[in-house]
């Protein structure tokens, strides 16, 4: 734990990060930006896992291991997302959400 | 970071006596950073000079020998020249990223330098996951190259940056895995403890066959990761001008340049630490004089640096596809098998201990 810093402050910071991620997810119009916002959201939650593990249950490691798994899943997800985006770009020469909407017609 | 250098302990005590605890810590951090910057600059310049002299020697010519004794001040003069040069840039470049890129490269090199144990007490940051930290830091450096290439708004730079990115990401695996092979013997990631283990014999001896394989892979992959010949596709002059730093001039160019040499030094230093006992003297002949560890460390490192320069001036450049083939089809499988072999050796306790 960090001397002089209570868990509330850290959770506040992660909450703020989380909602910044949500804001980005909703307002951005580009697939890559959306992907980045998702990463932000994921990271905010990962910090929560780690912080709660450290502050409340320092003898255990579940939080750390969970965050490791989340990071692994995030890596897999990003690899797939990037490959999809690149494939999409090859087909329609754009990664804007509004252009991808053509698929729904 | 609180574990400061032993040699600065005196300074620490003195600082603490004249100001508050926090301020003393702060001033101490600044001082250490300045020391490392100094090391960085001097080592970088010196390495450039060595490179040039070695190149000249390989090519049977003289090399810089006019400025100072045997041209020792040559690179210093070059640095002064670069400092005084105009900083040019392309019109439509993304200025923010364009300026940011060199610092990325420099800062990551510096951070890597911080964990390297020059001698028992000359180590800024003895973190308990030292090697992992080195791997992590070295993977960030490539971002600077990518940024520099892209934000220059120049197609050669972009291609160079892409090549560099591909190359670094690929060879990172081999670097990491070959170091991991050695971790199997040491059982720790902390660099100081790794050296401690080697008091029974350097790891390259302890681990014999797999250790030698791992060392060779590490040297190849390390050379590739620093974008040096024969893996210098990122800045292949004959194809791309100067690669990702085509559009840089003056000091910014110097940063890239220095960082490249410092990275080479860092690779050599890691190899020294992990394979050749770091600051340990051969057979413990100078155990009694701790400060001589710096000499031994630098001697071993310089030998490896010379080895890498030897590569550079000996081997022809690879093509991109050959480069990737080498990594993914040969080095990586070999590395994985090597780990299994090393695991077997550790399990069956076939380690050679002196």
């Amino acid at each position, binding site marked *: *734990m960090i001397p002089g810093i209570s868990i509330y402050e850290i*959770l506040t910071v992660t909450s703020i990060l989380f*909602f910044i*991620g949500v804001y980005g997810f909703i307002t951005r119009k580009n697939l890559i*930006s959306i992907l980045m916002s998702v990463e932000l959201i994921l990271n905010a939650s990962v910090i929560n896992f780690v912080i709660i593990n450290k502050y409340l249950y320092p003898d255990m490691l579940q939080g750390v291991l969970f965050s490791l798994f989340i990071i692994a899943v995030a890596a897999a997800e990003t690899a797939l997302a990037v490959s999809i985006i690149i494939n999409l770009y090859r*087909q329609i020469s754009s990664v804007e959400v509004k252009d991808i909407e053509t698929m729904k017609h | 970071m609180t574990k400061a250098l032993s040699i600065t302990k005196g300074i620490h005590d003195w600082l603490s006596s004249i100001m508050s605890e926090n301020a003393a810590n702060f001033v101490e951090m600044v001082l250490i950073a300045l020391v490392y910057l100094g090391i960085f600059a001097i080592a970088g310049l010196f390495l450039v000079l060595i490179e040039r002299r070695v190149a000249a020697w390989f090519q049977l010519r003289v090399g810089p020998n006019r400025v100072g004794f045997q041209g020792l001040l040559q690179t210093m003069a070059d640095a002064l020249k670069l400092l005084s040069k105009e900083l040019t840039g392309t019109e439509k470049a993304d200025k923010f990223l364009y300026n940011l890129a060199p610092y990325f490269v420099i800062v990551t090199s510096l951070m890597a330098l911080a964990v390297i144990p020059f001698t028992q007490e000359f180590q800024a940051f003895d973190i*308990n996951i030292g090697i992992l930290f080195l791997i992590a830091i070295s993977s960030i450096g490539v971002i600077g190259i990518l*940024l520099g290439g892209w934000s220059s708004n120049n197609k050669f730079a972009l291609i160079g940056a892409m090549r560099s990115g591909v190359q670094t990401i690929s060879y990172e695996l081999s670097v990491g895995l070959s170091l991991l092979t050695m971790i199997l013997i040491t059982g720790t990631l902390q660099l100081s403890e790794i050296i401690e283990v080697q008091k029974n014999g350097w790891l390259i001896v302890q681990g014999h066959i797999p250790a030698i394989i791992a060392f060779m892979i590490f040297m190849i992959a390390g050379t590739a990761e620093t974008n040096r010949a024969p893996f210098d596709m990122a800045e292949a002059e004959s194809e791309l001008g100067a690669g990702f730093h085509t559009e840089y001039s003056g000091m910014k160019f110097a940063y890239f340049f220095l960082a490249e040499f410092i990275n080479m030094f860092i690779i050599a230093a890691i190899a020294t630490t992990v394979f050749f006992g770091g600051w340990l003297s051969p057979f413990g002949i100078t155990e009694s004089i701790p400060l001589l560890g710096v000499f031994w460390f630098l001697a071993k490192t310089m030998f490896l640096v010379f080895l890498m320069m030897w590569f550079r001036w000996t081997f022809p450049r690879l093509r991109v596809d050959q480069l990737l083939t080498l990594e993914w089809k040969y080095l990586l499988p070999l590395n994985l098998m090597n780990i299994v072999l090393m695991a077997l050796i550790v399990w069956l306790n076939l380690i050679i201990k002196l």
Partner: protein
Amino acid sequence: MERVIFYILALIMIVFAIASVTSRKMLRSVIYLLFVLCGIAGVYFLIDYNFLAAIQLTVYAGGIIVLIIFSVLLVHHIEMELEIAKPSKQIITTIACLLGLGVFLTTIYAHEFNVVENSLTTTTAEIGTKLLSYDAGGFILPFEVISVLLLAAMVGAIIIAKGRKLEERSQKSEDSSI
């Protein structure tokens, strides 16, 4: 000391996160995100989870960000600027996010956390043992599942990114055979 560092890190993270989701330049936004991730790694260093911090740096900074930069390099031109949402949408989203943040914070501050004072350092060996343990509370099964997932993702990514080309190639070879 640590307090100051934490506040600096928190400031960096929040400022760059905001910059990341509002910047109109693609690659800058990615770099801001990188700063946020590095800040997070810094927080991990601060709470003495060094291994996690190094993993964060390696995977996120060295892997994911580089991948994203690659995709940006492939699909984006330097002069392109991102479209931004309509102001009305921005405002509504901001309000919703602030409301949600308020809900989060009230909930967090209303809860009494049972903080345990402990300054044990977690070593890599402990994590590794726990991860590969098959006793109660061991994580060997998720570990294996994750490894399969990563393999699947790797294969999938290659196939997705390559799919069209393969088709074209087979098409071409058919044409040439005719």
